[in-house]
């Protein structure tokens, strides 16, 4: 019964998410809007009896407000002149470029905006320091083909173009849909967890070993070294490391095991100090806490490594925790710790450093397992619910990847375009 109900929930969830994904597909599968204002106009029609220049003139010259920006940009596009043959090379090509000019409302003369090289049929006018582009102001644009000896074809003019700022970036609607969909899935599983549904979470060896590692340090009478990585406090991996630090500090407070937390970033130091102080308070030993347990070293990468290695060699901690984001110093830390005989537990989302930690540490928490630490150690239903939501999202991503592969094979590029992040 439970299994059928869970399968039904999965089915409904997958249906809802796929529906949400196809809404923007339907919204975006429409004809592009015509130019906002103005109309293409040949201002200098060829006099009767005279032949059109062999260069021709660029067709379908459009000038529109650049979409999804903060304004002050006009997007200009045109088709190449019939005389433009880029394959002939610069010298042989009869077309030497496309001259684009702009006329503002207060200006008497056309201002040259750019001369695009042959073969290019696009330009984004962002204004210049001398002739800035302003929002909500009418501009006229004209394009002329430049040939040998400055022979110009008849100009094509677009009148009354206005640049404006937009309130919503429609290019990112797919990201918004994904975020909302994921949020819905997250809330769904959190509510399920709150209702008392049992949620299975597989064993994570590195997190199970935390208690054992703390116990080892307590028995040996040696300190525990905890490093929160080399990123700042805004990084998710650092927050996850601080979470684990809180749990470790709570245990060290109860067992009265010395704790050393050297920090690379001063902001992380401040957060870590608060975390450890609170943990010691909750552990019933607020007097055992000292600010010297959690200290700042340096923001120099190898200076930090040298200092921590020195601490390891002098203090000889029994347990080393490396939680957070690391760079090249990971192996130096782990090998030095291994030399001192410490049990080492590492957890990082840095894919380049994982192999080094795996070879040198006793336990390694890989990638998202680090983020799961909070849920895994606390076993709170709300936290466990979020883990299930992550797993469900991974299934959806797998399905979408297969869909993308099929779409690419069959040439349904509109499906692929749905997932391009701009």
């Amino acid at each position, binding site marked *: 019964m439970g299994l059928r109900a869970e399968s039904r929930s999965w089915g409904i969830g997958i249906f809802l998410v796929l529906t949400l994904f196809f809404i923007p597909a339907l919204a975006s599968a429409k004809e592009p809007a015509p130019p906002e204002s103005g109309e293409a106009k040949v201002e200098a029609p060829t006099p009767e009896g005279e032949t059109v220049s062999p260069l021709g003139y660029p067709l379908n010259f459009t000038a529109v407000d650049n979409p999804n920006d903060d304004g002050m940009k006009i997007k200009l596009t045109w088709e190449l002149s019939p005389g433009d043959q880029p394959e002939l090379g610069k010298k042989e090509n009869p077309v030497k470029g496309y001259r684009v000019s702009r006329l503002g409302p207060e200006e008497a003369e056309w201002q040259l905006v750019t001369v695009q090289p042959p073969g290019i049929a696009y330009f984004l006018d962002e204004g210049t320091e001398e002739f800035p582009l302003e929002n909500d102001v009418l501009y006229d644009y004209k394009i002329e083909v430049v040939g040998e000896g400055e022979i110009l074809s008849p100009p094509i003019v677009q009148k009354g173009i206005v640049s404006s700022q937009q309130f*919503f970036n429609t290019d990112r609607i797919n990201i918004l849909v994904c975020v909302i969909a994921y949020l819905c899935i997250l809330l769904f599983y959190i509510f399920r967890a709150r209702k008392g549904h049992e949620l299975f979470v597989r064993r994570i060896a590195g997190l199970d070993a935390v208690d054992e590692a703390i116990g080892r340090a307590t028995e040996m009478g040696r300190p525990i070294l905890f490093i929160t990585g080399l990123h700042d406090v805004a990084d998710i991996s650092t927050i996850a490391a601080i979470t684990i630090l809180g749990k470790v500090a709570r245990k060290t407070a109860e067992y009265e095991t010395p704790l050393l937390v050297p920090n690379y970033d*001063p*902001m992380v130091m401040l957060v870590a100090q608060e975390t450890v102080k609170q*943990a010691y308070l909750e552990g019933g030993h607020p007097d055992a806490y000292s600010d010297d347990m959690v200290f700042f070293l340096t923001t120099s*990468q190898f200076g930090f490594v040298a200092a921590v290695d020195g601490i390891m060699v002098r203090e000889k901690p029994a347990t080393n925790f490396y939680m957070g984001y690391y760079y090249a110093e990971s192996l130096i830390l782990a090998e030095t710790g291994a030399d001192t005989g410490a049990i080492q537990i590492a957890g990082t989302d840095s894919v380049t450093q994982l192999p080094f930690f795996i070879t040198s540490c006793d336990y390694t928490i890989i990638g998202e397992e680090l*983020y799961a630490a909070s849920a895994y*150690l606390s076993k709170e239903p709300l936290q466990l619910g*979020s883990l299930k939501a*992550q797993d469900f999202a991974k299934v959806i991503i797998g399905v979408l990847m297969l869909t993308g592969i099929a779409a690419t094979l069959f040439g349904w590029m509109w499906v692929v375009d749905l997932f391009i992040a701009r």
Partner: protein
Amino acid sequence: MRREVPVLICAIMGVAMIIQFFIPHPVSQAIYKTVIKWFIIIVTFAMVLGLLSLTRMHLTKLRRGDKDWFFSLVTISSLFVNLLVGFFSFRITDSFIFEGLKVPFNFFTISFATGLAAGSPFMNLFDYIQVPMQATMFSLLAFFIASASFRTFRARTVEATLLLVAALIVMVGRVPVGHMISTSIPALSDWILVNPNMAAKRGIMIGVGLGGISMALKIILGIERSWLGGGGE
């Protein structure tokens, strides 16, 4: 209130920055730039607190005459020498302008300049002491990789043997001698890095990305509060 107010601030700012990502309007961009400036200012103040923490800890060790007090002395001395040199850095120039007159070429003078000028004592300290020390620490990696490889790459199980063979191919393939032995070795090394290795990396990165989103949403929604401090119970 001590926990509710930070959670509320976090929720408001988190939602605001998510919404800002989708709004290209200049007001939204201006808000984003202002928030970034606030962050930089707060981090700068935090640096001051970090330095105070470092100084206090080492001065305490010096005062108490703790074991290894000498290293604390070196740390404090280095910190203050660098600070003073940076503030009052000077360089010897071959001429300078004094009250509108240019002193001749042979007259060596001292002019005060900010510490980051090329050739200043501060930059000399950085270029000739700090950079070589950093390079020394970095070079330890070569030896540690050798010792870690020797310890780890043992053919005890099938997976360990696969790891050993793959590691051998990739290591030999990345050095010129691999090409000299056979041109297939660098090609095989590249194949291993581009195919199975990349597939595993991407799998981990997908998981990391989802985990990061989940963590961020939990923090914004107030479900994850461990960052406020404490053991979370």
